[in-house]
């Protein structure tokens, strides 16, 4: 039998329909891959019993010819998505024993379409981080290593477990979330494809909130087609999310393979940073050449407020986080540390329940929202957000269809490498991705090559609002043109 875990999601879907293997066999192969990869720490909770039961039900539906779009496909779920009856931790001690009494809209739609849940994937605590090192459940080790090295590298974050599990072939695809780059940066670090859809495209209902005006759910998968297949099941209007867009969901897979001739691709000069590694610049030029060869028109553009996106993000995101995380008070759910009175209980619970990075961001957020500072920080940052969005609207109005940029300023780094006293060092990882969240746009990260040390590097395409279709078409063009990079050998089992 073929390697059931090494195939694409699309191939597995077809194999299930032609009865080349059963959903039970496919799930069993992934469960044993997971059992052999515990050293990577990609999963916080494994759900083998549920997976087997779901696969069995899938086989029954396949036999009856009632297969859903994702029938029998084993997926990993970022542990930020509430799953009814299955512990959902958000990577935090404060939710360490939280068992949701309800299901997130997105996972509900995945199960509706026949997908199988393998377990809950590790992440930075409350999705706050770029390396998966802030998780209460320990860091995730990337399946990738530098050529000739054996140091443990980060898979990126916050969706580090999702990216690592997909790259290590522990699941055929995974859900993820992206507030400042948390889908695209780990996808770039692990040679996988990740798309952050337009704000409002996927429901946020039942996804633990970090920064509500920036959070958006999306998939990580091994190919552009696989990501498109997952997106169709994840997207859609949900009355339970008041910011959900009431628009029909296109057949994203139909965009994969579509010609991109005549598409206008903007190259923003502000993304050319001082001191950017030569290999990132070369990769970007390579991407430009690929799209040009495919018939796209390349146009130099300017997005003048780009450099202010990251500092403005570090006002908006912590402000919203401090408000969202106020609910963790030791009273209604989660950890409780007893205190002499209610205020003491709150303070002790939150000091013990939140990790260092979360405490820091809640405090920054509290400060920028406090009396006397609200206008100087929060309102100003929201005004800058208007300017950032206007930059994009201007170039789109001038006929640009999508924008090509690097996904990250470097390849993956080692665990512990960026643990200095200055948190800003880690924040700079999101320099190319955060503008997209600030403007609510869709962005996809696609593997495009490798660093001199043999690590994956990705390029990012930014689209018009609700035009994920074009990103899938362009992404696949780059995927086809890029050198084929084999996923890492299984050194971990």
């Amino acid at each position, binding site marked *: 039998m073929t390697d059931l875990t090494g195939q694409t999601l699309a191939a597995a879907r077809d194999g299930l329909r032609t009865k080349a293997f059963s959903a039970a066999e496919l799930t069993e192969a992934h469960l044993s891959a997971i059992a052999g990869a515990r050293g990577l720490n990609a999963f916080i909770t494994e759900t083998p019993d549920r997976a087997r039961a779901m696969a069995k039900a899938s086989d029954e539906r396949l036999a009856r010819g009632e297969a859903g779009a994702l029938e029998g496909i084993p997926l990993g779920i970022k542990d930020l998505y509430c799953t009814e009856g299955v512990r959902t931790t958000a990577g935090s001690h404060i939710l360490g024993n939280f068992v949701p009494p309800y299901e997130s809209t997105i996972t509900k739609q995945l199960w509706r379409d026949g997908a199988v849940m393998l377990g809950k994937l590790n992440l930075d605590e409350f999705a706050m981080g770029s390396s998966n090192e802030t998780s209460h459940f320990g860091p995730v080790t990337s399946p990738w290593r530098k050529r000739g090295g054996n140091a443990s590298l980060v898979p990126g974050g916050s969706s580090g477990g999702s990216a690592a599990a997909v790259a290590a072939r522990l699941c055929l695809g995974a859900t993820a979330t992206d507030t400042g780059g948390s889908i695209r940066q780990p996808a770039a670090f692990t040679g996988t494809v990740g798309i952050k859809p337009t704000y*409002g495209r996927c429901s946020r209902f039942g996804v633990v909130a970090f920064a509500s005006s920036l959070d958006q759910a999306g998939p990580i998968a091994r190919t552009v087609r696989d990501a498109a297949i997952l997106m169709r099941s994840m997207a859609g209007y949900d009355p339970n999310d008041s910011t959900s867009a009431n628009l029909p969901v296109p057949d994203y897979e139909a965009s994969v393979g579509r010609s991109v001739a005549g598409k206008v691709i903007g190259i923003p000069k502000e993304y050319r940073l001082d001191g950017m590694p030569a290999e990132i610049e070369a990769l970007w030029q390579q991407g430009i050449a690929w799209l040009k060869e495919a018939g796209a028109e390349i146009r130099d553009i300017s997005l003048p407020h780009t450099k202010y996106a990251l500092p403005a993000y570090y006002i908006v995101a912590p402000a919203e986080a401090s408000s969202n995380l*106020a609910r963790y008070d030791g009273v209604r759910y989660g950890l409780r540390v007893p*205190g002499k009175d209610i205020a003491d209980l709150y303070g002790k619970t939150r000091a013990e329940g939140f990790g260092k990075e979360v405490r820091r961001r809640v405090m920054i957020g509290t400060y920028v929202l406090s009396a006397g500072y609200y206008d100087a920080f929060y309102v100003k940052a929201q005004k800058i957000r208007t300017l950032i969005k206007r930059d994009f609207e201007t170039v789109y109005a001038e006929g640009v269809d999508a924008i090509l940029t690097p996904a990250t300023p470097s390849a993956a780094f080692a665990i512990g490498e960026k643990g200095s006293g200055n948190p800003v060092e880690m924040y700079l990882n999101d320099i190319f991705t955060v503008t997209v969240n600030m403007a609510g746009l869709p962005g996809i990260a696609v593997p495009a090559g490798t660093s001199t040390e043999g690590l994956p590097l990705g390029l990012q395409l930014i689209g018009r609002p609700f035009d994920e279709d074009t990103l899938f078409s362009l992404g696949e063009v780059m995927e086809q043109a890029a050198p084929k990079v084999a996923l890492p050998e299984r050194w971990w089992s």
Partner: protein
Amino acid sequence: MSVDQATVRRIATLARIAVSEDEVPHLQGELNAILAFVAELDEVDVSGVEPMTSVTPMALPLRADVVTAGGIAEAVLRNAPMSEDGYFVVPKVIE
């Protein structure tokens, strides 16, 4: 803009996060590093610019004023660290 140690303690109180005295200098340094980073925004002229209040242009939808979920007190209380007779239990608030 930077914060002094008294401000760090005040923020911690507002955020309801207990902070020990030996954590204060460290937190002060980290918060000031972030504030120095965001100070770059000072150079942007935002006069006449409206703050973004909605990411995508949309009106907030309204729903009918009816009960859509209810009668699930048991499910609501299931994760409570302490509950009794259908209530959350907290330390005495009023003396």
